[in-house]
């Protein structure tokens, strides 16, 4: 019953729809530890402690906070409800607080557990301020409500924010696990590129160089780039475009850009003149063809082609 109603405040993501995240080593270990902790709840209870149930993910836009939260929920076997702040925040005084209360009431139905995922958490939990205007008082009320409800909530909460600094300190403290997600490193970028380029694939050297040229790009941007390329492969010939390597890359880059504030990866600075572009086999082969045609010495799959399950 609860989930029918809670969908009023957010979108429900079922476990089957989750994707595997691609993470750096440190974060990976912390998450595995958390999962084990949740599963060891009875043993922990025997020594008088409870499993941590509230986590906050901090990181730049597009680093995969939602993907990760969804994956964690799926690992636990629970649906995730991604709260939409615009459905909670109301223009009427007092109603936002009421909505927050109702949302937590609905989320804490023990017969139908869920993982509550609050994206753009800073929208709900701005720093409290000395009341100089009536709107400040109202905001403080909301933050207080949120504070109490988070503290009392028995289920799982994962909050995500791009601006950790904007979150009220008292609320920040209520979260047991603070995890900062960084932009992907070289190895992660290779994996992400390979995942989103599938069913196409790149030989290891080309993959390495293109991942280097994507330094400082977020997973979301890499995904957009790969999808843009695939789109060009399909639509370009239909539109009668020049399908040469440089022209295709230039067209793809023309419509996909990193946010001006986050810094430009080299691929965008140099464009189609980047050496990584010259290293690309053209047309980009299918992943299956690469492993078959690779030289015998390099046929060790892990060294040559990144395969994803």
């Amino acid at each position, binding site marked *: 019953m609860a*989930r*029918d109603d809670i*969908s009023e405040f957010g979108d*429900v993501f*079922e*476990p*089957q729809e*989750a994707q*595997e*995240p*691609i*993470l750096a*080593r440190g*974060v*990976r*270990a912390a*998450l*595995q530890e958390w*999962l*084990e902790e949740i*599963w060891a709840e009875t043993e922990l209870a025997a020594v008088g402690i409870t499993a941590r149930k509230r986590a906050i993910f901090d990181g730049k836009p597009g680093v995969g906070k939602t993907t990760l939260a969804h*994956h964690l929920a*799926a*690992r*636990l*076997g*629970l649906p995730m409800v991604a709260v939409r702040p615009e459905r909670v925040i109301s223009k009427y005084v007092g109603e936002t607080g009421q909505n927050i209360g109702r949302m937590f009431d609905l989320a804490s139905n023990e017969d139908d*557990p869920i993982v509550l995922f609050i994206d753009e958490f800073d929208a709900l939990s701005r720093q409290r301020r000395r009341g100089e205007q009536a709107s400040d008082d109202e905001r403080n009320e909301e933050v207080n409500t949120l504070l109490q409800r988070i503290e009392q909530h028995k289920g799982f909460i994962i909050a995500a924010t791009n601006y950790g600094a904007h979150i009220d300190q008292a609320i920040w403290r209520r979260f047991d696990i603070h995890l900062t997600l960084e932009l992907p490193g070289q190895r992660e970028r290779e*994996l992400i590129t390979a995942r989103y380029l599938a069913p196409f694939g790149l030989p290891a050297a080309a993959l390495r160089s293109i991942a280097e040229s994507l330094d400082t790009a977020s997973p979301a941007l890499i995904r957009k780039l790969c999808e843009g390329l695939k789109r060009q492969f399909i639509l370009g010939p239909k539109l009668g475009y020049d399908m040469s390597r440089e022209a295709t890359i230039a067209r793809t880059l023309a419509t996909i850009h990193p946010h001006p504030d986050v810094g430009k990866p080299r691929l965008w600075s140099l464009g189609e003149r980047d050496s990584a572009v010259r290293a690309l086999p053209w047309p980009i082969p299918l992943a299956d063809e690469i492993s078959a045609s690779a030289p015998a010495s390099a046929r060790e799959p892990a060294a040559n082609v*990144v395969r*994803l*399950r």
Partner: protein
Amino acid sequence: MNRIRGYVERYERLEAEKKDITEEQKLVMAEAKAAGFDTKILKHCIKVRTKKPADYHEAQALADMYLSALGMVVEPPLFRAANRIGVDIAARESVIEALKNFVPENGSIVIEAGGAPVRLTRDKDGTVTAQDVVERPAPPASSPASAGRRNRVPQDVPDVSLDEAEALGVKAARDNVPIITNPFPFGDDRRPRWDKGWRTGSGNGGFGPE
């Protein structure tokens, strides 16, 4: 000097005329009173005539509403309006006929009169038809969308021991099945064991390729 005098005298003359006019107005009112009219109401009518009709009607409607909310109007405004158009509100047919005027374009209103609900519908051509409303059985408690979610097909939970669950996990990893397809539900002790088996089988932590 003369100019100033001119202004002052002109102003004084107008002032005198104003006085005369006010006197004449008073005379008109006295005449009306002598003829038996209520001068207060006459003055009210004069005031109303200076307003724009739309403004006046709006104010009147609001005043009606406020007064009925305060319990000072015995008869709600709609009934009074119905009375004005000569409807006998005790007769079902005449109420239905009168309300046909209020049916919105391409819409319908349902009224309960004489114990049975009637739906008045205005079609595209503007003709209004009255139809008895047949009580339909209540719709099922949940909407189809949410029903789909709640009644999703439960996964087949294998009937196995803890160790067997772990072995199933290892096998799943070798068969290239994603880790999130764990068949055991939340709260089942076999779920972590399957997960552990999968991690052993695949050689990674399940958080994507290492």
